[in-house]
């Protein structure tokens, strides 16, 4: 809309006509207080805090509902306005507990902040305050009614934002109260958005409440370790007996790729890290078949010695490596480099939840054809084929819903199930489970493949009319089907694509070459020349064994060693334990998983919240992972690989190019004063930088990744500043897609599960149990 000019507190301002006054003011740093206003949610004008004086208007007006107009003259902080706000706060405090020191929101409470600002020194209220017991509405949501100021943010975020509508308002007047849909409990997606959005301490988190105070925590913004959306989660940590313990996950600063959103897993499912069963000492299997705790150097020496023996006696092809969907890009990259240069094998794979290789091949050389998670919130038209984002990509589901609600985006969905997002769909097509490939052919113009009817025809017509389409598809598409879908998409004017894979770094695992036939950046193993140059090593030229072939080889006695990093293939692929009887198995993990139980050596590993590096979400958005927590006794996978390589006699300078091309000035150039070096490292740490003088420095490896993987040639500065960077599909060096064996095994996770890791989260388990065994409904209160 056209710009208008208006005056606020004597300042001339311009903003597009139709902008809300409160937003226009905020944009120039004039903060108008509000409890009920929340950007992106429907307007309420209920709290009356945002009142301002507008010339020619008889009464004070609410800035949250007033749109700016040409020539409007506004005052936002006169005595009259201050008095109005003060009175409103006094009214609220009349019935509000004044026990801020013990309130869970103390220090993070908007009511507290407003009281501080506008003052309510003298208590005019002498009546006894209403007291009501706190209620537990779900394993993760508690409600403290007297603290509620009825801003309706929770009701709106749950309804409008989540499309769950689990919160309502009951009774009226002073008896009005926020009520859950199950009368005394919530039946919902447990996202906890209501808690984050609550300006006071009325809704509190079942995991965090009364554990600590906000100012006693360290807050670290990092990336969630669960699904492939890669949301930013801010972890609140505090010192514990054996390190730094995570006590809270939230999203209050909204600075991440996920904007306002965080799901149950990002918010609460960090608790696996605090489990008592976590491994903290290496285990080595003894002659009697039992595990015995060992020191780090004993265990590493033992494992390295065996690996070296096997490499030397049987060659690299007798060793297999299985990587992880949740380790960092640097770790994944290092693992494949270790496999190829130190172990000398291409037998490397990971649990593939989706076919990224075919996707990369289909898009190779095409620029600007992949969409970031952010794009899903703005794209004018979206075609969603397969997958159920509500369960498997909650942030994507949020973006799609918001996009429809706020931008009237058109969403077309074809699915074999009646997924929840169909409620936002402009058109929804139910198709057979095996009907995706034919649907694409039909969309591309082949009428003979489906029994078309009016609905399918309208679906196709609408899609083909779109001038800018975002095609999002799931693991239903593999190999040639992906090729066909991309070809169809490219026949439309302006199409972008997203392939939905399952875990925090599934995409990174594929991008970084945890595959038997491709190197990082999908470079075929046969054309590895520039890698060989950089590595200064000879690389195996033939494709290695894939994950299933490795187990076949083990069974037939041809796999002497298997090195598993952060993965549980035994359960995932239903491997018969007997298969590994004669294979030397090394496992790095947090827990004694079914795979670890079969190992000869087990190393206790750190998780994604306990290390630094980068991860790539399924959209190709690369984000910085920061170390938030710490657990005595565990090591990062990066460190473990490096130490193993060292004990195997590898040249560490070659494996991790540390100290190379780096101007890590420790103060020496200026003739350091005593202590200067320390201060310098403090500065580096504060800026998320690390002195690159250590073989354990993942950023040294990132340097190498950026040299060798052109699609990862993003701005380091931006990354370190916390922005997400999008991988460039046009720089992928893969050519045609050779026919590959279909090894895709979708995780089938829901909102409340997260592979093997999820099983170690007490919170997820509690929520899952509460959802599978419904509580009997008791009679309505009052």
């Amino acid at each position: 809309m056209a710009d208008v000019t208006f005056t606020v507190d004597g300042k001339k301002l311009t903003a597009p006509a139709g902008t809300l006054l409160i937003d226009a003011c905020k944009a120039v740093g004039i903060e108008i207080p509000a409890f009920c206003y929340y950007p992106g949610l429907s307007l309420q004008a209920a709290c009356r805090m945002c009142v301002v004086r507008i010339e020619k208007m008889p009464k004070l007006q609410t800035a949250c509902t007033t749109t700016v107009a040409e020539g409007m003259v506004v005052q936002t902080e006169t005595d009259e306005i201050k008095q109005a706000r003060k009175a409103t706060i006094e009214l609220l405090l009349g019935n509000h507990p004044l026990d801020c020191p013990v309130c869970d929101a103390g220090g993070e409470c908007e009511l507290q902040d407003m009281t501080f600002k506008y003052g309510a020194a003298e208590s005019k209220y002498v009546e006894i305050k209403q007291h009501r017991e706190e209620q537990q509405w779900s394993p993760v949501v508690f409600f403290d009614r007297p603290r509620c100021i009825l801003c309706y943010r929770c009701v709106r975020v749950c309804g409008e934002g989540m499309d769950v509508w689990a919160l309502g308002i009951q009774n009226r007047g002073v008896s009005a109260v926020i009520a859950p849909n199950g009368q005394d409990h919530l039946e919902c997606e447990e996202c906890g958005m209501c808690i984050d959005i609550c300006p006071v301490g009325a809704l509190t988190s079942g995991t965090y409440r009364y554990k600590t105070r906000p100012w006693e925590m360290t807050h670290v913004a990092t990336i969630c370790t669960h699904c492939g959306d890669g949301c930013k989660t801010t972890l609140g940590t505090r010192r514990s007996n054996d390190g730094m313990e995570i006590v809270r996950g939230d999203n209050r600063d909204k600075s991440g790729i996920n904007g306002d959103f965080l799901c149950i897993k990002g918010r609460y499912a960090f608790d696996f890290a605090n489990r008592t069963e976590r491994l903290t000492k290496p285990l080595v299997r003894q002659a009697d078949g039992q595990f015995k705790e060992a020191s780090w150097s004993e265990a590493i020496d033992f494992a390295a010695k065996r690996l070296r023996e096997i490499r030397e006696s049987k060659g690299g092809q007798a060793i297999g490596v299985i990587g992880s969907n949740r380790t960092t890009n640097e770790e994944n990259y290092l693992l494949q480099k270790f496999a190829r240069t130190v172990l000398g094998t291409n037998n490397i794979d990971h649990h593939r939840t989706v076919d990224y290789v075919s996707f990369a091949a289909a898009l190779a050389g095409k620029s600007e054809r992949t969409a970031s998670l952010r794009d899903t919130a703005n794209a004018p038209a979206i075609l969603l084929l397969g997958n159920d984002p509500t369960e498997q990509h909650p942030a994507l589901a949020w973006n799609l819903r918001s996009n429809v609600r706020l931008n009237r985006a058109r969403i077309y969905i074809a699915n074999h199930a009646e997924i929840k997002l169909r409620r936002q769909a402009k058109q929804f097509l139910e198709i057979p489970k095996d009907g995706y490939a034919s649907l694409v052919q039909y969309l591309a113009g082949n009428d003979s493949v489906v029994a078309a009817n009016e609905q399918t025809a309208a679906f196709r017509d609408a899609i083909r009319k779109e001038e800018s389409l975002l095609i999002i598809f799931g693991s239903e598409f593999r190999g040639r089907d992906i090729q066909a879908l991309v070809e169809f998409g490219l026949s439309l004017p302006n199409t972008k694509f997203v392939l939905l894979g399952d875990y925090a770094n599934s995409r990174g695992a594929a991008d970084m070459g945890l595959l038997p036939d491709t190197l990082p950046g999908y470079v075929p193993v046969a054309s590895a020349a520039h890698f060989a140059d950089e590595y200064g090593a000879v690389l195996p030229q033939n494709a290695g064994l894939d994950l299933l072939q490795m187990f076949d080889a083990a069974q037939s006695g041809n796999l002497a060693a298997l090195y598993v990093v952060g993965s549980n293939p035994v359960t995932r692929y239903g491997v018969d334990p007997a298969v590994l009887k004669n294979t030397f198995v090394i496992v790095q993990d947090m827990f004694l998983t079914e795979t670890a139980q079969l190992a000869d050596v087990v190393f206790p590993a750190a998780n994604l919240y306990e290390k630094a590096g980068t991860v790539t979400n399924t959209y190709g958005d690369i984000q910085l992972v920061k170390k938030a927590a710490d657990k005595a006794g565990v090591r990062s996978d990066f460190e473990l690989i490096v130490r193993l390589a060292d004990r195997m006699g590898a040249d560490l300078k070659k494996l991790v190019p540390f100290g190379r091309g780096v101007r890590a000035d420790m103060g020496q150039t200026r003739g350091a004063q005593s202590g200067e070096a320390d201060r310098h490292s403090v500065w580096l740490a504060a800026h998320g930088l690390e002195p690159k003088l250590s073989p354990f420095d993942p950023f040294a490896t990132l340097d190498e990744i950026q040299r060798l993987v052109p699609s990862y040639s993003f701005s380091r500065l931006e990354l370190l500043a916390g922005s997400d960077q999008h991988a460039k599909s046009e720089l992928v060096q893969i050519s045609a897609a050779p026919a590959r064996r279909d090894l895709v095994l979708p995780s089938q996770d829901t909102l409340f599960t997260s592979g093997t890791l999820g099983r170690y989260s007490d919170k997820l388990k509690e929520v899952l149990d509460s959802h599978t065994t419904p509580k009997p409904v008791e009679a309505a209160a009052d």
Partner: protein
Amino acid sequence: MPRLVSHPDEVKIISRRFGQGAENLDKYLELDGYKATQLALEKGADWIIAEMKASGLRGRGGAGFPTGMKWSFVPKQSDRPKYVLVNGDESEPGTCKDHLIFLHDPHAVIEGTIIAGLAIGAKMGFIYLRGEYRYLLKIMEKAVADAYARGFLGKNIFGSGVDFDVVTQTGAGAYEVGEESALMESLEGKRGVPRIKPPFPAVVGLYGGPTVINNAETIATVPHILLMGGEPYAKIGSERNGGTRLFGISGHVERPGVYELPMGYNLKKAIYEVAGGVRGGRGLKAVVPGGSSTPVLRPEEIDVGLDFDQMGKAGTMLGSGGIVVIDDQTCIVEFALRTIAFYQHESCGWCIPCREGTDWLKKTIGRVHAGGGVDKDLDNIRYLAENMMGRTFCPLGDAAAMPTLGFIKKFRSEFEDHLNGKPCPYARHEELVGA
């Protein structure tokens, strides 16, 4: 059955058919029924609006907005269907006039609805009655059915080629639902919480379509205006206040009842002559002139004309025309408490100043009344009420604050007596909390 009253000073226009069996359609037709509708069909929208403007009719729901002007705000073109909504929620304490209209002249409401529809280009009207009026709803339902049976409603009404439907609707106990936007919410099956304005109902109303909302009395007056002509109607009333209106006189008078008096009629005369004066020859203490939300008048202030402008000048409001007369044996603190208790009970709870303010006021005045007040209470009452005024989401907050300010300003000494432990000379109830 509510008693009908009569007084020579009355000018019976709206109440013309009261007590004559006009709920029967044939009888209604005998009494000029549906003539106005046919005239309106013949003459068209512009003529209707011109007559309405000329009549000087101002809304009888309370705010007194000129009806013809309100209708003319509805855009001619609209993508969405337009609607007429008749406000028969009648819940303002002291007000019981629409009650009589539904009881005695249901077809006049239907006629007015059709005519309003013709004026704005609506094809559907809703008549919303408060839930307590079940017996009146039945009367309205029968009248609507009879009108359909005769072809006065439905397809091609009066053979004119115009379609018009009327649906009756009921609330379920909520004063706030009388507020026009809350009324629309309620009719849409929701909580009676008002809507953000703008947009105003004339542009975005029921089901998102342009909507005219009028009080039942306003609507029932419309056919009479068309039959007698706008200008002659205007002449009956006072300046800028056309015609007559139903005044309910209740409380301590000899002959309480609903009287139809010309706009501008003197309040004192209405009490002393029309309603027979204060009951039992007692003295007058106070008058609440237009329903419970209008500020109270002292006896020396009641020599004033009953129209929107004169009452405004007198520092109060004409409101819904419910005149409540209070004799000198009444405790004003108790009266104030009963008044605020009502608003506390009826606040929808949406916005902070009204939700918390009414509750706090009720508690404080209750304490003062019960003899447990503290010195600063009176200032607090004023502070609270002043800080509610003009700050709430809808006018209910004002409706609660205004009378409170009036009582405390005009009868402060009585409040002080309660504070100073003087036993209330009129005390009847140890505890008074309201429903």
